């Protein structure tokens, strides 16, 4: 394993300064966008959260769980049902949707904790996601069935919540908060325990680290982050349909995780930005998306298995994440 330089104290200060500088600059973004590009920017923020949640489980914890689209759908439906049926203000539904997502994470982790791992976990979580989608379709009184659930019109500070600029600030705040919280979590002792579980679960258990709890909490936090993203998505599109939570979207977030770098928070952000924005540039070639995604993923796997994050950390130690080790 190549020795990666850890950042010096000065570089760490620079890094935390950079962390806040990026969203600060982004505050000005709406001045440079039109409603279309603003909409895409909002979508990118959602992708960042989905990818972040996904990478925690498959990258950091090393579990092959495909339940993320399920968490996303659960969050979106929770938000829509709470807002449309129970009149909860949408802003409040974000943490609640996160809580439902965490519940989904709890269910998925209960499979992992029963010893269902690797491909079995992948397959059972895949089935879980499809069962959820079936439930959205058939629980018509609650979910609106195939017609989906429209989000109620709402205003905040006198501005309609259908306004993409207002949405952007809310999305940005939620994203920054959750990314920061995730970074802090992964830099803590808990984060090291997560890494230890990935490297060697048996050995970790013998070190008196409660591996079961580590797995449970990681899954639930992943569910929470993605559930919140689901609430944002409900508002982003304004209408929740079962079709939005199919396999196609799962695979897109897969590619984002991979291109960014498995298990890297920075990579999750980069992958999400890149692969959400790129298809918009490819609009001129409809139908090429699958080919394009397939080739990108295959190419990255062969040429750059640890993704963009591994490139960046070679550029400067600022981009080194202590909790993210390159695979042996």
């Amino acid at each position: 394993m190549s020795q990666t330089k850890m950042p010096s104290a000065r570089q760490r200060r620079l890094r935390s300064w950079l962390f806040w500088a990026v969203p600060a600059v982004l505050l000005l973004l709406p001045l440079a966008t039109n409603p279309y590009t603003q909409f895409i920017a909002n979508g990118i923020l959602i992708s960042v959260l989905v990818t972040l949640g996904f990478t925690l489980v498959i990258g950091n914890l090393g579990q092959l769980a495909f339940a993320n689209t399920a968490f996303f759908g659960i969050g979106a439906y929770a938000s829509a049902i709470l807002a449309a049926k129970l009149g909860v203000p949408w802003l409040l539904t974000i943490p609640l949707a996160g809580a439902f997502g965490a519940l989904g994470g709890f269910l998925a982790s209960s499979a992992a904790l029963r010893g269902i791992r690797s491909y079995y976990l992948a397959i059972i979580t895949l089935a879980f996601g499809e069962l959820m989608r079936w439930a959205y379709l058939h629980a018509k009184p609650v979910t609106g069935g195939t017609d989906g659930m429209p989000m109620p019109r709402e205003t905040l500070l006198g501005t309609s919540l259908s306004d993409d600029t207002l949405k952007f600030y809310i999305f940005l705040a939620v994203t920054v908060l959750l990314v920061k919280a995730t970074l802090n979590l992964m830099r803590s002792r808990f984060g090291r325990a997560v890494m230890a579980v990935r490297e060697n679960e048996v050995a970790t258990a013998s070190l008196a680290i409660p591996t079961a709890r580590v797995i449970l909490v990681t899954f639930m936090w992943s569910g929470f982050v993605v559930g919140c993203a689901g609430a944002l998505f409900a508002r982003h599109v304004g209408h929740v349909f079962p079709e939005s939570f199919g396999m196609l979207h799962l695979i897109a977030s897969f590619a984002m995780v991979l291109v960014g770098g498995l298990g890297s928070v920075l990579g999750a952000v980069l992958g999400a930005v890149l692969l959400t924005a790129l298809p918009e540039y490819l609009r001129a070639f409809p139908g090429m998306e699958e080919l394009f995604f397939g080739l990108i993923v295959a190419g990255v796997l062969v040429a750059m298995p640890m993704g963009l994050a591994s490139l960046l950390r070679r550029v400067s130690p600022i981009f080194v994440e202590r909790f993210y080790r390159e695979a042996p």
Partner: protein
Amino acid sequence: MKTFASLLAAFAVSASPLLAQDDAWETQGLTDDAITIGVMGPFSGNASSYSKALIGMMAYYDKVNAEGGVHGRQLVAVQEDTACDSAKGLAAAKKLISQDEVFMLQGNSCSGVAVALRPTIEEAGLPWIVAHAVSDSISDPLAANIFHGVPTGRANGRAMAQFVLSKPDTTNVAIIEHSNDWAHSYSNPARDYLEEQGVTPSLELTMERGQTDATAQVLKLRQEQPDFIIAALYEAETAIFLRDLKKYGMGDIPVMGTAGTDLENTLKRTGDFDTVKNYYVIHSYVDNLDGPLMQPWGDMIHEYYPEEELSTFSFVSIGSAEALVAALEAVGPELTRSKLMAALEEVRDFDTGILSDPITWTPEDHQGVKGSAVAGFVDGEPTVLKAWGQPY
């Protein structure tokens, strides 16, 4: 930071150009020699076969352009892909409206996407003619700028149920459908109409997309022996269902299908006349797809898209394109968005020569097509029908 953000939000909101319906807005996307029209459709993804509808429509634009355009202006289609996905569709709409700044929109195939688009397009205020998607909630309740140019689900579903009940002594009706919005948009209004007439469906079955076998469903039907079956299934599953129905000796029960299928292709698919001889479909056209009245339209599509395989979708949005051109003609050279919408609301009993029912848009009702014919085999020949045994 929160306050800072909200301050900025307020600033950004006030800085963004309010969609005031001023002169510039009225003629956005318009030049002396071109009208740009945003055409959204599922040009990729697993619903891409529906985008055939938009090909027919754009071929019609080409034809109009070849004849000199409308008041000297060419109809310029700007295509955007929705992939039948709501988020992607919204991005497409916002791109067309705010980046490409098209004059108006015409198109859309997937109902779910169209429903999701409605608030955005309604707010933007530019004219939108829905040329293929059938969901009623796209145009009901009324939105000033949204016009429905095809029979909606309600019109189709009622037409299906009406036809079913027009067969003498029909009391036992079964329904088989996909569990998706497309199928429900047909089956729900059909159910409503049946209930109005005092008929409760005796059996409700689902068959999902991708299933290659309908044994379980067909055996249930065999026990029930209905007089008529309403089948809201896609092309592939329709063929499988009809084939299994015949296999199990129930080929004599008539089946009522949606506009998503047609007789000719279903016959081609099953490869066996006996299998489809009792199949009826919603057929919103004046003639069979290969009949003399449709022939010129097919030729028109092939003139501009020589490779295009014709199907029932290919013709569906040409009618609303005709109505659009008529309204543009009526407005005259001084075109604005408001004038166009006013002209569209003047369209009355517009005979498109292609749709079986005329288009009528009034200020109170933008669902332009209220009914549909049905096609079925009569004496071995595909025939357009008004009601059971009644040629169109």
